[in-house]
C-alpha cells in the first residue's frame, strides 16, 4: 500500500533534488566553472523534447495506431544531421546579435519588427499553453492513479477533486517557484540559465531510466523477452494490426507528414529553441549532440510497443486508458517501488517541459508583447526611470506565473476534452508555421517583413481553422455541425475536408493547407513587395552571417551621431547601472581605449549598445530605445544596396587577389624548378666536357706514342712499323668517328641538324643497313638472321634511319661472342612499325637499361673491363627516333642477350616536318 504521504514526500524529494542541482549549477557558473559546458549535458538537455506526451503518450499512441508513434522520433533523427548547416547558422546569428527567443529571431531578421515579434509570441503562446496544460493533466492524473494503489482506477473516474485538493495546482505553483527562482534570478544579457539546464539534463536521465526500467520489467519480468511479447501480439487478432502499417492509402502520407512535422518541431518549439540555441554554451557541442540525441530518442522508444501490447492484453478489458499503461502495469503487478519510479519518471518528463517552455514563453511575452506596449505608453514615462531592470524581472516573473496559471486553468476547463488530449501534434503544427519565415530568413535574402507577416498570419489562421477549432468542436465547445457541414453550412469549408480534400488525416490535411498558405504568401508577398532599409541590411547580416560578423560590416548600415553619455545610461537602465558600466569598460578595452571618455562614439559603439540591450529586452525594442537617444541620419535603400554590392565586390576582389597570389606561388615554384634544372644542366655540361676531353685524349695518346716510337727509333723493323702505322690509322679513324658523332649530337640537340624527310619503306632501310654491315658480321663470326614482315610506309629521314639501324647492328656484333646470333625483325605495331634487334650477348643488367642511353655512359664490358665504342651511338639513335615521334628502348636480362627495339609512328614524318624549322630557330634563340 502506497501511502499518500509517501507519494507526496517522494515528489517533493524529487523536486528538492532538482532545486539542489539547479542551485549547484548556478553556483558553479558564477564561479566560472560551468558543469554544463560539455556536449553530453547539451545532448541530454535537448531531450526536453520528450515530455509526458512521450513518457505516457507514446504507449497510448502505439496501442491505438501501432507504428504511428514512431515518426515523431524519426523526424528529429533525420533533422539533426542537417543541423550541421542549419542550426549552426542559427546559433551563429543568435550569438552574434544576442537573440534570446524565437520571436526575437524572427523580429530581428525582418528589420527588428515589433509587429512580427508580437505575432510570433501570440502564435507560440496559443499553440503551447495547452501543451503545458497537458503536462499538468498527466502529472495530476498519475498522482490520482498512484493514490489508489493497489487498485487500478482511472483519474477520470476518480473525478475532479475540489480545487484546493488538486495536486496539479500545487505542482503548477512549485514549478512557477522553480522557474522564477532559476529562470529570472537576474537579467543576463545572454539569457542563459546554467543551473536550470543542469536540472533539465538530470530530468532527462531520470525519465529515460524510469521508462527503460518499466519497459524491461514488462518485457522480461511479465513476459519472457521481446519474442514472447510479439508472439502474443501475433496470436491475438486485435493486436496483430499494430505490427504493420494500416493498409489504408493515407497512412504513408500521414507517416511522411508526421516525420516532416516533427523535423520542424525539433527546431521551432519554443523550449527546443531555448535549449538548443539560447542555452548553448559552445557551438562545438552541436557535433556530438547530432548523434547522441537520436540515440536518446531510440532508447526511449525501444520498449514502447512491448508495454503497449502488455497493457492491451492484461488491462484493456478493465477499461484502463492506454495512456496510463506505464503506470498501471506496475500497479497491476503489485510492484510498489517500480510504480513510484515510473511516477517520478513521468513527473520529470512533465516538469522539464513545463519549466523550459515557461521560461521561453515568458521571455517572449516580456520582450515582444509587454515591453513594446510599455515603451509606447508615453504616460508611463519609462524613459525617465533610472533603473528598469527590476521592472523587467518583475514582468518576467509575472509572465511565468500567468503562463502557468493559464495552463492550469485550461486544464481545469478542458479536463478530458479532446482539445487537450490531442494537443501534442496540434501544438507541433502551430510552431511549424515559424519554419518558412526562419528557414527562408536565413537562406533567402529576398524574404521581406510583409511576406513574413502575411505568411505567418495565413498559416496561423489556417491552422486554427483546420486543427484548433475542430478540436473545440470535438470537445463539444462548438456545434458539431461546424465539422460536418462546414462554416455557414458550406460543404467546401468543412474544416477537416477543406475545399473537398478528403482522404487525408487531420494533421497532414492541416499541415498541407497551412504550409501552402504560409509558404505561398511568404514567397509571393516577399517578391511583390519592396523591402525597407532595415530589412535589407538585417537580411544581409543574417544570410551572410559567416562572412559578415566583422564589426566593420555590421556598423556600416548605420550613420548618425551618438555619445557615450547617452548610450551608457540607457543601457544601464535595463541591465543595471553597474553591469552596463562593466560591459562598456570591457568594450572600451577591446577597442584599445583606457577610459569611457576616450571611447569614440561611432556606429560600432551604437551597435554594441544596441546588442547589449537586445539581450535584455529583445532586438525590436532595443532598436526603438537606441533610436530615441541618438541622432540618426536616414540611410537610403539605394545606399544600403550599394554597401551590399560594394561588400560583395570587395569579397570578389579579395577572392581574385587570393587567386592571383596562388598563381604567383605556382610561378615561383616553376621558376625555382627551372633554375634547379639549369644548374643540373650546367653540371652535366661540365661532366660532358671532361668526358669528351678524356675520350679525345685516349686515341691521341696512343697515336702520339706510336708516332714517337717511329720517329725516335729508325731501326724498327718493317713488320712493327706496319703494325704501328695500322694502329695509328685505326686510332685516327676512331678520333674522326668520335668528332663526327660529337658534331652530329650537337646538331641534333641544338635543332640545327638537317632532316630530309620522305616517305620510305622501313624494309628497304633495314636491308641496306644489313648489307652494309654484312662484312662486319662475317669478320666477327656472328650469324645474322633477318625476318621482315610487310609493314606500312612511314615518313622519316632515310639516312638517319639507316644510321640508327646500323648503330644497333654494330652494337649487337660488338657484344656478341664468336658464333653468336643476331636477329633483326620488322613488324607492324598498333600505331606504326616496330623494329627489334636481338643479340645473344651477355645482356645488360636492369640497373643499366637507362644509363646506356646517356652520353658517354657506356657499360663496361664484363669480359675485358674496357669500354668499347664512343658512348655516343645509342644517345644519338634515341634522339633520332624521338625526333620522328617514336621511342627506343632495351629489354634484357644478364646472360640472356639483349633486344633493342624502336617504334616509329605512322604520322611521324608529318610531325617532324611540321615542327622542324620553327623548333630549330627557337632552340637556337635559347642557345644564344
Amino acid at each position: 500500500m502506497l501511502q499518500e504521504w509517501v507519494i507526496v514526500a517522494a515528489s517533493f524529494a524529487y523536486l528538492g533534488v532538482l532545486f539542489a542541482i539547479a542551485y549547484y549549477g548556478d553556483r558553479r557558473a558564477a564561479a566560472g566553472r560551468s558543469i554544463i559546458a560539455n556536449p553530453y549535458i547539451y545532448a541530454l538537455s535537448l531531450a526536453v523534447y520528450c515530455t509526458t506526451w512521450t513518457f505516457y503518450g507514446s504507449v497510448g499512441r502505439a496501442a491505438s495506431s501501432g507504428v504511428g508513434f514512431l515518426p515523431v522520433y524519426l523526424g528529429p533523427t533525420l533533422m539533426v544531421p542537417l543541423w550541421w548547416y542549419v542550426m549552426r547558422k542559427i546559433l551563429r546569428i543568435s550569438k552574434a546579435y544576442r537573440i534570446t527567443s524565437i520571436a526575437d529571431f524572427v523580429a530581428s531578421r525582418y528589420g527588428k519588427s515589433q509587429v512580427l515579434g508580437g505575432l510570433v509570441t501570440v502564435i507560440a503562446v496559443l499553440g503551447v499553453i495547452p501543451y503545458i496544460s497537458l503536462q499538468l493533466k498527466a502529472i495530476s492524473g498519475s498522482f490520482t492513479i498512484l493514490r489508489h494503489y493497489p487498485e487500478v482506477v482511472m483519474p477520470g473516474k476518480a473525478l475532479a477533486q475540489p480545487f484546493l485538493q488538486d495536486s496539479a495546482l500545487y505542482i503548477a505553483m512549485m514549478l512557477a517557484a522553480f522557474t522564477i527562482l532559476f529562470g529570472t534570478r537576474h537579467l543576463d544579457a545572454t539569457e542563459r540559465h546554467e543551473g536550470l539546464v543542469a536540472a533539465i539534463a538530470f530530468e532527462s536521465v531520470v525519465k529515460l531510466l524510469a521508462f527503460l526500467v518499466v519497459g524491461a520489467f514488462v518485457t522480461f519480468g511479465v513476459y519472457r523477452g521481446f519474442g514472447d511479447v510479439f508472439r502474443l501480439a501475433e496470436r491475438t487478432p486485435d493486436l496483430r494490426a499494430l505490427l504493420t502499417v494500416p493498409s489504408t492509402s493515407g497512412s504513408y502520407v500521414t507517416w511522411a507528414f508526421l516525420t516532416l512535422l516533427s523535423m520542424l518541431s525539433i527546431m521551432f518549439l519554443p523550449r527546443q529553441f531555448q535549449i538548443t540555441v539560447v542555452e548553448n554554451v559552445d557551438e562545438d557541442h552541436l557535433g556530438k549532440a547530432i548523434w547522441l540525441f537520436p540515440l536518446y530518442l531510440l532508447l526511449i522508444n525501444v520498449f514502447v510497443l512491448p508495454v503497449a501490447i502488455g497493457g492491451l492484453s492484461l488491462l484493456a478489458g478493465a477499461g484502463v486508458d492506454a495512456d496510463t499503461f506505464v503506470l498501471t502495469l506496475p500497479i497491476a503487478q503489485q510492484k510498489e517501488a517500480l510504480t513510484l519510479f515510473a511516477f517520478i519518471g513521468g513527473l520529470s518528463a512533465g516538469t522539464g517541459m513545463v519549466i523550459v517552455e515557461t521560461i521561453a514563453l515568458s521571455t517572449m511575452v516580456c520582450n515582444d508583447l509587454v515591453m513594446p506596449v510599455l515603451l509606447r505608453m508615453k504616460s508611463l514615462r519609462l524613459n525617465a526611470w533610472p533603473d528598469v531592470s527590476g521592472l523587467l524581472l518583475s514582468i518576467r516573473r509575472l509572465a511565468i506565473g500567468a503562463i502557468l496559471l493559464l495552463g492550469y486553468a485550461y486544464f481545469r476547463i478542458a479536463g478530458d476534452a479532446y482539445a487537450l488530449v490531442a494537443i501534442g501534434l496540434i501544438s507541433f503544427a502551430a510552431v511549424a508555421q515559424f519554419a518558412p519565415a526562419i528557414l527562408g530568413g536565413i537562406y533567402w535574402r529576398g524574404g521581406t517583413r510583409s511576406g513574413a507577416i502575411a505568411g505567418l498570419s495565413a498559416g496561423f489562421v489556417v491552422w486554427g481553422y483546420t486543427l484548433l477549432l475542430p478540436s473545440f468542436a470535438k470537445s463539444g465547445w462548438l456545434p458539431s455541425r461546424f465539422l460536418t457541414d462546414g462554416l455557414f453550412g458550406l460543404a467546401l469549408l468543412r474544416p477537416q475536408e477543406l475545399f473537398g480534400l478528403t482522404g487525408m488525416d487531420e494533421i497532414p490535411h492541416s499541415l498541407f493547407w497551412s504550409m501552402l498558405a504560409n509558404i505561398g504568401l511568404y514567397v509571393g508577398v516577399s517578391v511583390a513587395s519592396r523591402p525597407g532599409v532595415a530589412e535589407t541590411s538585417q537580411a544581409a547580416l543574417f544570410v551572410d552571417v559567416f562572412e559578415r560578423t566583422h564589426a566593420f560590416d555590421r556598423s556600416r548600415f548605420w550613420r548618425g551621431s551618438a555619445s557615450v553619455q547617452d548610450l551608457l545610461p540607457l543601457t544601464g537602465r535595463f541591465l543595471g547601472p553597474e553591469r552596463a558600466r562593466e560591459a562598456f569598460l570591457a568594450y572600451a578595452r577591446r577597442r584599445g581605449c583606457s577610459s569611457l571618455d576616450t571611447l569614440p562614439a561611432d556606429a560600432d559603439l551604437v551597435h554594441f549598445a544596441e546588442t547589449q540591450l537586445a539581450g535584455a529586452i529583445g532586438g525590436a525594442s532595443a532598436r526603438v530605445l537606441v533610436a530615441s537617444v541618438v541622432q540618426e541620419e536616414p540611410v537610403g535603400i539605394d545606399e544600403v544596396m550599394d554597401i551590399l554590392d560594394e561588400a560583395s565586390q570587395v569579397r570578389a576582389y579579395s577572392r581574385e587577389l587570393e587567386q592571383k597570389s596562388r598563381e604567383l606561388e605556382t610561378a615561383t615554384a616553376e621558376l625555382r624548378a627551372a633554375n634547379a634544372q639549369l644548374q643540373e644542366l650546367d653540371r652535366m655540361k661540365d661532366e660532358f666536357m671532361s668526358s669528351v676531353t678524356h675520350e679525345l685524349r685516349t686515341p691521341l695518346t696512343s697515336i702520339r706514342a706510336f708516332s714517337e716510337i717511329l720517329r725516335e727509333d729508325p731501326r724498327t723493323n718493317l713488320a712493327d712499323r706496319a703494325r704501328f702505322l695500322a694502329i695509328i690509322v685505326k686510332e685516327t679513324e676512331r678520333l674522326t668517328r668520335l668528332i663526327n658523332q660529337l658534331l652530329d649530337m650537337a646538331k641534333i640537340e641544338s635543332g640545327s641538324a638537317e632532316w630530309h624527310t620522305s616517305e620510305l619503306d622501313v624494309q628497304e632501310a633495314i636491308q641496306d643497313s644489313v648489307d652494309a654491315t654484312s662484312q662486319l658480321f662475317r669478320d666477327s663470326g656472328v650469324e645474322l638472321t633477318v625476318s621482315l614482315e610487310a609493314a606500312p610506309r612511314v615518313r622519316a629521314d632515310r639516312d638517319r634511319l639507316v644510321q640508327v639501324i646500323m648503330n644497333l647492328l654494330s652494337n649487337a656484333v660488338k657484344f656478341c661472342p664468336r658464333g653468336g646470333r643476331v636477329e633483326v625483325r620488322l613488324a607492324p605495331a598498333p600505331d606504326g612499325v616496330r623494329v627489334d634487334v636481338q643479340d645473344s650477348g651477355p645482356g645488360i643488367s636492369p640497373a643499366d637499361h637507362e644509363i646506356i642511353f646517356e652520353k658517354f655512359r657506356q657499360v663496361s664490358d664484363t669480359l675485358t673491363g674496357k669500354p668499347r665504342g664512343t658512348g655516343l651511338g645509342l644517345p644519338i639513335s634515341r634522339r633520332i627516333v624521338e625526333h620522328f615521334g617514336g621511342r627506343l628502348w632495351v629489354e634484357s636480362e644478364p646472360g640472356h642477350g639483349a633486344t633493342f627495339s624502336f617504334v616509329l609512328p605512322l604520322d611521324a614524318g608529318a610531325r617532324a616536318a611540321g615542327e622542324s624549322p620553327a623548333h630549330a630557330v627557337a632552340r637556337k634563340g635559347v642557345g644564344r
Partner: protein
Amino acid sequence: MSRSGTTGPRLVAIFLMGGALLNYPILFLFARPGELAGIPLLYAYVFAVWILLIGLMAAVIERPRG
C-alpha cells in the same frame, strides 16, 4: 568546428538515405507479415535503419581529425 569540409556533405547524405529508407515506398516493402529474430519485420527494419543512421552519424562526427 575545424573539421574537414567533408563532414557536412556526409551528414546530408545520411539525411537523404534516412529519408528514403524510412518512407514510402521502401517502407512499404517491409510492412508485411513476417519476423526477424522474433521481432515483427517492420519494427526490426525501422529500428535497424535507425541504429544504422545513428552509427553513421557517430562515425562521421567522431572520426579522428587530420
